[in-house]
């Protein structure tokens, strides 16, 4: 269903291992360059999507993660999906490592939607939207 609406959708799968994070960044930088994004915008998407990827690698228990990137009229949408569980770590006291990641995603995205995987229904999807016009 999404293919017709998002002909430019780029999807890449990575092993959920810390050593894969550098490759995730290569993919994100390639997409930002292909879409001609400004350096600042590219950095913000790179930071946010990298945090979502690191959470999938470190906390989800999933063997792999998928990154999807597409444009929708006036916005860039990046989704980081895994087949694991989402652990809620909203920082209230001294932040835990995962909590800082979520804070970075929230601060750098114009919209964030999180589909939380849980033990009975695994699969977390973090969708980050960035508006192209300020």
């Amino acid at each position, binding site marked *: 269903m999404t293919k017709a609406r998002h002909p430019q959708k780029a999807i890449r799968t990575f092993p959920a291992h810390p050593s894969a994070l550098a490759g995730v*960044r290569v993919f994100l930088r390639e997409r930002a360059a292909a879409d001609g994004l400004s350096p600042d915008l590219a950095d913000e998407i790179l930071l946010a999507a990298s945090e979502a990827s690191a959470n999938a690698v470190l906390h989800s228990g999933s063997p792999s993660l998928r990154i999807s990137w597409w444009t929708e009229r006036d916005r860039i949408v990046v989704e980081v999906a895994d087949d694991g569980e989402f652990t809620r770590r909203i920082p209230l006291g001294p932040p835990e490592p995962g909590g800082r990641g979520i804070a*970075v995603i929230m601060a*750098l995205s114009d919209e964030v939607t999180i589909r939380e995987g849980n033990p009975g229904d695994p699969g977390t999807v973090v969708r980050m939207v960035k508006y192209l016009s300020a």
Partner: protein
Amino acid sequence: MLLQIDKVESGRGFRLVGELDASNVGDLRDVLDPVVAEGGDLTLDLGGLAFMDSSGIQILVTTAQGLGDRGNLVLLSPGPLVRRLLSLIPVERLENVRIEGEET
């Protein structure tokens, strides 16, 4: 190598070159732990760091907290991406952390 950690000749500090993430933050921790245990001021030159994520923030915070009133942590010349990340989680609010140098 994704991250290079070079000891600087003058003073107590290190220059980080490359990209810092969950895959190599342990290497940096191994280098910094003895310095923190010893105490005293510490400078980290971030000018060559093209990427850092919140695992990097975490180690900056624990390093500053580890030094406490025994030393300052100076973050030198962070580039645009690292500056953006630091602006979200302002580590310089910790009393013994300073950001110095021009943007690289």
